[in-house]
């Protein structure tokens, strides 16, 4: 069927009725061998929690210095995929990950040096989670742990706090508890904390979902500023946000209670010309 630009809701609805639910026309995206330019390549990755399959046979690529948005309805495994990328899944009892995840030429699943992995792949969570320490210690703790010289701590702190636009707001009160900051400031502090280790890839799990619209705007601007210095994979429920910040999008969907990727590509192309009927329905707000 033709899934060109959709002119009217009625047209989309007609298409969905015609195809029925969980249309057989929508198949999981399969990709060939990892392309040379990909920073991160995921092939045939499945995630199980006990016997429940959260994610089935996912293929996707993430390119250097671009913002890749993972979009799709709730419960289709976006966050599960994200937590495989820096092995946060190790924390979840009963969680097994199969398939291949190659980051920077190394196999994430078998990587012995998790310190390297977590230095190279930073993560920002849905709810701001600064440690119950001072603002300064939130930044210093990871730096010290990864062997940053004491003489460099102050400079690195200023560097990352400036990068997230927090320096002028907090430079007078670095010794105050991080929890005294507003929600938006806390989230920017968490982004700064993730950036202190100079990761090559930054994972963001719905970083704005617990924030008000103004703080959201600040974070989105920050993501756009970071583009080019660090590659970003962002999970979002907010399609408008994905449109605003993403270079590439990956669309997740639920098939038989487990998540899969149904479409991926450059953001403009996917938004303008979705190929899969489920994507069409999702992007137009009719499903998902």
């Amino acid at each position, binding site marked *: 069927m033709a899934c060109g630009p959709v002119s009217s809701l009625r047209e989309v609805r007609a298409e969905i009725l015609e195809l029925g639910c969980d249309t057989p026309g929508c198949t999981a995206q399969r990709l060939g061998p990892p392309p040379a330019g990909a920073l991160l390549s995921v092939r045939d990755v499945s995630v199980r929690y006990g016997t429940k399959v959260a994610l089935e046979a996912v293929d996707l690529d993430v390119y250097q210095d671009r913002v890749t948005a993972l979009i799709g309805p709730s419960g289709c495994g976006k966050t599960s995929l994200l937590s495989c990328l820096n092995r946060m899944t190790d924390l979840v009892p009963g969680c097994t990950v199969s398939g291949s995840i190659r980051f920077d030429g190394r196999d994430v699943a078998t990587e012995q040096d998790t310190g390297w992995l977590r230095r190279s792949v930073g993560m920002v969570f849905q709810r701001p989670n600064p*440690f*119950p*320490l001072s603002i300064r210690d939130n930044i210093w703790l990871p730096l010290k742990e990864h062997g940053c010289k004491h003489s460099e701590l102050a400079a690195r702190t200023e560097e990352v706090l400036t990068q997230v636009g927090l320096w002028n707001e907090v430079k007078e009160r670095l010794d105050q508890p991080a*929890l005294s900051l507003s929600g938006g400031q806390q989230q920017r502090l968490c982004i700064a*904390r*993730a950036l202190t280790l100079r990761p090559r890839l930054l994972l963001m799990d719905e970083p704005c979902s617990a924030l008000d619209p103004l703080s959201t705007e600040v974070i989105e601007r920050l993501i756009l500023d970071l583009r080019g210095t660090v590659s970003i994979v962002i999970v979002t429920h907010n399609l408008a946000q994905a449109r605003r910040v993403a270079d590439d999008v990956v669309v997740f969907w639920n098939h038989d209670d487990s998540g899969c990727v149904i479409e991926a590509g450059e953001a403009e192309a996917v938004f303008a010309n979705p190929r899969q009927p489920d994507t069409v329905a999702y992007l137009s707000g009719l499903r998902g």
Partner: protein
Amino acid sequence: MKVKSTDRILVWSLRAASATAGSLVLLILCFLVLESVEGITRVGAGRFLNDPGWHPSQGAESEFSLVPMIAATIASTIGAILLAGPVGVLAAVFCRFYAPPKLARAFRSIVELLAGIPSVVYGFWGLVTLVPLVRELAPPGASLLAGILVLAMMIVPTVALLAFAALKNVPPGHLEGATALGLSRWTTIVKVVFPSAASGLGVAIVLGTMRAIGETMAVLMVCGNITKVPSSLFDPVRTLTANIALELGYATQEHRAVLFVSGLALMIMIVLLVFVQERLQRRARLA
């Protein structure tokens, strides 16, 4: 309508139950204060601290110094908490962050069982096992040290269980954040978990301390019960609680009244600790 009337019955029975519980505590406190007032006025408050010793049944020549007992209570409690605090907290850390789930479950059941052992059993065990061991180090054996060791054993389970609960309350976001930054488990525990659980761990220590202060039977059995300010760990001592238990049975007149004063002194210590605990808990809720 029917729902409403049962509702009213429920509300009133709840009110009655809480009024009973609350007034019982107040009654005990009033009774303690009233009985003590008599002792304080008849003997004079200064003598509890300034008399040369504790010889309460010698008519006009009686001496009523509570200092040896207060010193014994404070020394045994501090000693016990110095031992049991770190051990209990580290046991909780092991259980929460290091032990495989099955071992952690087994460990917790054992600790819960330990917390339920009657104090007389601890005292009995202390008397036949600990006291001879201490005697080998320095006679007579029944001593402050034996009391500290038995008390420590008794409050380790309390501290460990409460500390475990405090560690479980650390927001998962802190742990995820620490893992995502590649922090080692030890750094995570010391630099992130402890600051986050500080108030809860404080409550664990305070409640353990309260249990140590109030414990009577076990210390009575292993401490030797001599009313003297201890000069070393191997000296026999008598705590406030043991003193009351030993003497109330035959005490009359002023002697009896002074025993109530020592009960009041215990109560004051506990009230102070409850106050500290409340403040810690309020901080824990705010954090």
